[in-house]
């Protein structure tokens, strides 16, 4: 018995050490954002600010248009999520419930496109957007991301678990495909749709390389790009950088803590099937 207890103790110690390593940057970010400049660069470093400097946040908003970044990020992440979910929903419905010539080919093409790394196509997409004159516009920011093969594939596996007899019964009762989608399919797979929506919104919120390419006007920047620009402009003001980082991360962290079960379950399901 004694041997097993030791094992458990060691396991706990290691787990707690790694948990601290995981959480520490977040704690340091939030506390550092409330310090004075002297406190952030003190040797030896401190962790607890003497007087929390709430004013740091208003200084961040005064020095860079963070409110605008928030708005831009919210708009692009929401639009991308809603439209790509809508497209994925229709596509997944067709792939699961309808029979047509060429289905196998379409499925094959889509699956092989899943392997294409985004970084390989992002630069030529930039070229397309630039030619369309859509640099520094919301449309340019969202356009290449309005479909997601990945989420469509995910929904396909979700819809596949709904019995086909339900679709047939709906057809016999005179429901059109459109009615079936909105009155049966969507309500029955609310959980899956919600999870996909959450994951899509989070990845939209955290996007970096694409908005870096297609925007250079300050008013069109997204949070992460605004943050890096701010970090180089406010180079010496460590406390403001940490406050700005807190502003960027906090909304997603709150979302995460509310929906952590759905998010984790969604990711596990997503990736074992893919």
């Amino acid at each position, binding site marked *: 018995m004694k041997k097993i207890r030791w094992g458990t103790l060691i396991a706990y110690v290691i787990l707690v050490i790694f948990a601290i390593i995981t959480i520490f940057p977040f704690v340091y970010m939030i506390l550092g954002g409330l310090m004075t400049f002297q406190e952030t660069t003190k040797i030896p470093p401190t962790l607890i600010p003497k007087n929390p400097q709430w004013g740091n946040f208003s200084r961040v908003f005064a020095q860079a248009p963070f409110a605008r970044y928030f708005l831009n990020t919210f708009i692009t992440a929401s639009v991308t999520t809603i439209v790509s979910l809508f497209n994925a929903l229709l596509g997944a*419905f*067709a792939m699961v419930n309808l029979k047509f010539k060429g289905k196998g080919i379409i499925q094959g093409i889509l699956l092989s496109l899943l392997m294409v790394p985004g970084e390989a196509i992002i630069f030529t997409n930039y070229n397309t957007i630039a030619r369309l004159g859509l640099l520094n516009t919301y449309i340019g920011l969202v356009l290449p991301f309005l479909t997601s093969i990945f989420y469509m594939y995910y929904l396909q596996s979700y819809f596949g678990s709904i019995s086909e007899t339900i679709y047939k019964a709906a057809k016999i009762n005179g429901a059109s495909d459109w009615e079936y989608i909105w009155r049966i399919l969507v309500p029955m797979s609310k959980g899956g749709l919600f999870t996909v929506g959450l994951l899509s919104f989070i990845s939209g919120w955290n996007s970096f390389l694409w908005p870096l390419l297609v925007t250079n006007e300050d008013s069109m920047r997204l949070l992460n790009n605004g943050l890096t620009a701010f970090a180089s402009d406010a180079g010496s003001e460590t406390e403001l950088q940490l406050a700005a980082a807190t502003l960027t991360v906090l909304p997603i962290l709150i979302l995460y803590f509310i929906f952590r079960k759905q998010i984790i379950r969604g990711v596990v399901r997503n990736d074992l099937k893919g």
Partner: protein
Amino acid sequence: MKTNQKKAWLFLAPTIIFVSFFSIWPIIRAFIMSFQSGSLINLSWSGFSNYQYIFKDPEFWLAIRNTILYALISVPVALAISIMLAWFIFSKVKNKALFETTFFMPYVTSTIAIGIVFRYIFNGEYGMLNFILRAMHLPAPNWIDDPAMSLTTIIIFGVWTSLAFNIVILMGALRNIDPNYYTIADMYGATGTEKFWRITMPQLVPTIAFLLTMNIIAAFKIYTSVYALFNGQAGVGNSATTAVFYIYNKFQIVGTPGVAMAATVVLFIIILFVTFLQRKMMKKIGGR
């Protein structure tokens, strides 16, 4: 009876249109551009000269070397730590959700924001990491400003960020193992170590193979975390440049899209090759 419900194309239309324009066309375009030179508005054919250029460019080789080193070190290290932590949570902890929620946090948060935080934690003078290292009488290197350290710094940050996804996926796989295996092993008096190596590990092999591929592909695309750690640079004196950094630099800053696309094609082929290898491996191991 064979049915051909043509209306399916109507439902698939938005997907097909967007995919053609923003996934298929850009791949073709990238291939074409890799054989062209000049600026974006004025491209002309130049055969293989872009490929000749990158293969002679020492910066390209440094980028590839860094990217491969990063992948080869950070991926196995992160995976080993993840397996250990996931197994501890699974086998020893009652409140599994608490640890899962904690370890998953980095997955949902912005790499840029956390990278900026790490820049201060890694700071040579006032950083928290060196404070701890000095307190333990260990060498405290200059993580950010020393070119010789930049790759190590990126690897540590890379391991930190990739634990989240690995642990959660591994936990999912551990939960799927038939508990009867463990019950029977207990009946025969197997120890914890025996159970881990004889039951758990063999059952985890497909998941580990999957994570290995996902992680290696992600490692080959590393860009954002370097950008955040070194404030938009690829380390001091470009010491930590990576494949995507090279591509971005040639495309946007130097203004030679052809060269950038040639590098993209090379990276693309490497990634496809890794994916292909994994498929083969999975088939052999999984036996299905």
